[in-house]
């Protein structure tokens, strides 16, 4: 009641609230949307005011948001981004396959498979313990220096290999969580039909596991899209490196902002797709249980 009387005071009168028995949910929904819109506008206004009123803003604007520089640097960064895209697409395919193999090895049971399991655990523990940037430096500078015959010596090859190895260790754990989330009775009934452990994993557990972890895998993919840029420390001219080079010669950082915008533009569709997929999956599960 107090809500209604307070609105009355603004002169709206009861007609604003519609008929007395209008569905309350809709009324509240409209109100919530208005509050959300108003608070967003206020928040952005305050944030902009705080930034723009700073005495150093003109200098920052010139360094980071300079349109003249933007026009020059954007094509260079965009050219570099193409390499990033090729890198993360290739890496993702290899990571998904390699990580699945590691996770399956780690999920084998029985004493006979102990050595394999142990290797998988050691690999995952070691790799997850090393910062990815360190792994890139070690492989990217270290292996080519060995000059091994028959082994590629390119910085790009080893930089990307480092990223693939690092991500495979994490992704293997995502898969493993998925495999373990499949109920034990599925394993039991598969084994009772005479399927071997490998067949049980391949035909029964992994297909169900992958469905469960697709959102987590997509999340990892978004992360990878940006982490491939780390190979720039090996001097590889991808998007951020191009911005870097431009900044070094002009002392203007607009290229970094351009690179950021481009990476965002690439990752937002995947993030939206992930949400869409998760929501669709949730609704499917609900319709089944109903």
């Amino acid at each position: 009641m107090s809500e209604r009387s307070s609105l009355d005071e603004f002169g709206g009168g009861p007609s604003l609230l519609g008929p007395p028995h209008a569905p309350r949910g809709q009324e509240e929904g409209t109100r919530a949307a208005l509050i959300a819109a108003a608070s967003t506008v206020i928040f952005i206004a305050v944030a902009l005011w705080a930034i723009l009123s700073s005495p150093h803003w003109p200098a920052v604007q010139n360094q980071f948001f300079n349109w003249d520089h933007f026009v020059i640097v954007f094509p260079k960064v965009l050219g570099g981004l193409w390499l990033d895209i090729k890198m993360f697409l290739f890496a993702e395919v290899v990571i998904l396959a390699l990580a699945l193999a590691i996770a399956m090895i780690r999920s084998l049971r029985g004493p006979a498979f102990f050595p394999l399991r142990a290797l998988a655990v050691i690999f995952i523990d070691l790799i997850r313990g090393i910062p990815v940037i360190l792994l890139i430096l070690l492989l990217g500078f270290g292996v080519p220096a060995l000059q091994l015959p028959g082994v590629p010596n390119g910085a790009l090859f080893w930089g990307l290999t480092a990223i693939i190895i690092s991500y495979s260790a994490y992704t293997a754990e995502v898969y493993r969580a998925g495999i373990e989330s499949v109920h034990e009775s599925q394993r039991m009934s598969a084994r009772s039909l005479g399927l071997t452990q490998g067949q049980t994993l391949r035909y029964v557990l992994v297909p169900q596991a992958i469905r469960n972890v697709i959102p987590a895998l997509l999340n990892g993919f978004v992360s990878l899209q940006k982490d491939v840029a780390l190979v720039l420390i090996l001097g590889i001219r991808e998007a951020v490196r191009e911005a870097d080079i431009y900044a070094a010669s002009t002392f203007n950082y607009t290229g970094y902002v351009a690179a950021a915008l481009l990476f965002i533009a690439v990752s937002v569709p995947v993030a939206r797709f992930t949400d869409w997929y998760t929501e669709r999956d949730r609704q499917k599960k609900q319709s089944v249980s109903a």
Partner: protein
Amino acid sequence: MTTPKLELRGVWKAFDDKEVLRDVDLDVNLHEVVCLIGSSGSGKSTMLKCVNLLVPIDDGMILLDDADITAPGVNPNRVREEMGIVFQAFNLFPHMNVLDNITLSPRKVHGVGRSEAEDKAKDLLDRFGLSDKSVEYPDRLSGGEQQRVAVIRALATEPDLMLFDEVTSALDPELVAEVLDVIRGLKDVGMTMVIATHEMGFARDVADQVCFLDQGRIHEHGPPKQIFSTPQEARTQQFLQRIIDAGRL
């Protein structure tokens, strides 16, 4: 005398400190139907899982066609090809349709070609009145239908011993009969079966031999008439009295 199809000799099993099977002996002859009765936790389920080698036994031995299947070095996959098991919770593979559920083991384990395996699966589906469900996914089926598919899946590998682990316990009451009818049909064609069940009326009808289990021991076994009409052991009498009081017999 012919050797039994299945023999349990002095089988012991404990989970951590809890003994679930204590010195269990059982003979199941060819074409014989044995029902295991007893309250939940009496060891019925574990006994079936031990026979299927899903649970390793601690002591004793289990013989199938006079061969020790619990000896070291026995390949459990070969043993499991000889027998089928159906569980309380159906355990169909949710990501496969009915036909793929049924043909997975024949195709991957027994090396049967897809078209041959599917033809056989369709024959079985026909026989059990499920021919219109072959491309459905399990979540589109009723509990009774799912359990019948689970039975067919176990039969598809042509076992000559079937194990049933409280297969009607998870079903709505009106769906119990359709699954029990399937088992009766198997008795008519001479399938050797071991059935853990809470359906006493069914056990009385279908069993050649009834075993009453309590706390991991077979306290009494014999023909259903003897167990249900003139039980000798006090525990059996108590158990049956509770069932009768509950209106279940």
